[in-house]
């Protein structure tokens, strides 16, 4: 699903160049559940942004679902994001003047789907994350866990190939974190490829494979026995 070869990325910080990713080689197969770990500054967010086509690598190749991601213009990039990827952010990033249902429907709007179908499908995903009763509520009327579940529903709405989660539990307490991880595990159980960036070991233990990043290089890449979040909920 994801093939990354010899990926380099540096940022220009004034006169100094900061080499963030120093030759990453990394493959993810369909249906995998991978967590990327590392201390801050290790380049894990940069890697996720490149995978999410929010940022572009300087060198190396990146193939997503057999499509080379290289020198895309903004319009194509936005189409690919819409088609291939679902995003979950630490700070939820819901549009605060839109209801939960409208937030979930937004990727479908950009797919050009008709309003009625859009709303039905969004409602289906809201049911899936257990928030059908909150469809007409605004984000600021919801708890953090609920907001993140709306964000997950939104990420799933366009039926992407890969779900990308950047510190999805970073703003949540432990109990809510496990609830959210339980939901993400269920999504993975259904066959969706999931990539999670986290710095919390207990969250990483709930995935099936952990990639440790240090100073822009992969230090360790290991398969783990998944711990089910449902036992804590």
């Amino acid at each position, binding site marked *: 699903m994801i093939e990354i070869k010899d990926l380099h990325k540096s940022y220009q910080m004034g006169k100094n160049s900061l080499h963030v990713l120093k030759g990453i080689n990394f493959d993810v197969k369909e249906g995998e559940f991978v967590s990327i770990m590392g201390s801050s500054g290790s380049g894990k967010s940069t890697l996720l942004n490149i995978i999410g086509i929010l940022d572009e690598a300087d060198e190396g190749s990146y193939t997503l679902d057999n499509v080379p991601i290289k020198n895309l213009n903004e*319009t194509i990039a936005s189409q690919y994001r*819409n088609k291939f990827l679902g995003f979950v952010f630490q*700070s939820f*990033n*819901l*549009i605060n003047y839109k209801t939960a249902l409208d937030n979930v429907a*937004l990727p479908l709007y*950009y797919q050009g789907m008709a309003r009625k179908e859009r709303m039905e499908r969004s409602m289906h995903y809201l049911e899936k994350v257990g928030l059908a009763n909150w469809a007409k509520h605004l984000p600021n009327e919801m708890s953090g866990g609920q907001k993140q579940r709306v964000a997950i529903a939104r990420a799933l709405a*366009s039926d992407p190939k890969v779900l990308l989660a950047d510190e999805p539990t970073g703003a949540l307490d432990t109990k809510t974190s496990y609830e959210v991880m339980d939901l993400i595990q269920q999504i993975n159980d259904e066959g969706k490829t999931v990539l999670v960036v986290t710095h919390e070991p207990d969250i990483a233990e709930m995935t099936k494979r952990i990639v440790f990043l240090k100073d822009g290089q992969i230090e360790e890449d290991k398969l783990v026995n998944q711990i089910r979040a449902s036992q804590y909920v």
Partner: protein
Amino acid sequence: MFSIERWQEIFEGLYKNKLRTALTGVSVASGIFILVILLGAGNGIQNGIQKQFEQDAVNRVSVWPGVTQKEYNGLGVGRSVQLHNADYDLATTLLKDYIEYKSAIFSVWSGNIVYKKETGTYRVEGVHPDYQFIENASIVKGRFVNQSDNANYEKNVIIGQKVANDLFKNGEDPLGEQLNVSGMIYKVVGVYSDPGGEREESRVFIPIATAQKAYSAGDSIRSMAFTLKKSDQFDNAVAESHEFTQKLETFLKARHTIAPDDQGALYINNSLEQAKNIYIITGGVQAFFWFVGICTIIAGVVGVGNIMLIIVKERTKEIGIRKALGASPISIITMILQEAVFITVIAGFSGLIFGLIVWEIVGPYVEADFFTRPEVDFNVAVTTLVILIVAGAFAGFVPAYRAAKIRPIVALRGE
């Protein structure tokens, strides 16, 4: 542009952000409103100035005699010049190509006029029929002096509105009533009004032939007045009027043996020269209000642009989210522009209508010497509105384009 889905998205955005929408709308609406008020005031002042000078026909030339100040051909200084019917007849024949309306005048400065128990002192002028047009007078009732009045020495009188108000206090119809003017009985055949106001309306007109007889003046006249044929170009009009004045002066001076350079023996007043000043003044006033108006539009455009910039700034994160979810740059640009244009159109039009309504209601009550009929040409107002909308869209484009360039990653990071 015409997709219902997109409009729904925009209306939702506008509706859910009421304060922002309202503030943008009010600033645009007030800009247009102020512009309409300014244009109206400008027109009011312009109309007011024009009205002040409207009392006589614009292209009027008057001639009246004085006293010689120079010796000429053996005739001495201090000789009074007297004009006669023959001067008038010959001059009008000689210069008929220039003349539109013409009249000789025999006037008495203060004539005592009596109607029943009411008395007043008014200026009495014996005139030809054309004099109505030279004075810019309009007939309220009855008629003006006509040819047969002069031919038959009729004792008819046409009185000013002011005279009618003074003498016919009980609201009687003046037409057909008998007036005693300086001891002779005249019949009122007309009432006139004059844009010059009460001063110009405190006069009575009688046929010049009758006047010369009544005041034992023989064939003497006091003055002559003409208006000249119109030219399309103001400059041509001035040139022709100057030419006419020259020829008239030369002719009359030769006839009355006056030195060509004698300044005091003959006065010729050409109102077109004054009119030129009026044109300059009203032109200046107009230019000033256009200047202010254009500045207002520029301020409005800058205001709209500024608001759009702030909106984009405020929505950076939302735009980032939309882009992460698959919004193309072009869809971001059109979204912001459509919102901007929609608000500008609705608000601008409201401001325009409101301004027009204000002038419609207040306008008739604002009446001063130099301020009349404040009004706004609807076409001008709509044109400025269109300019504002186009400029607003243009001003909105820069921030919209910038918004489309926002990297989603940067927008999403900015917490």
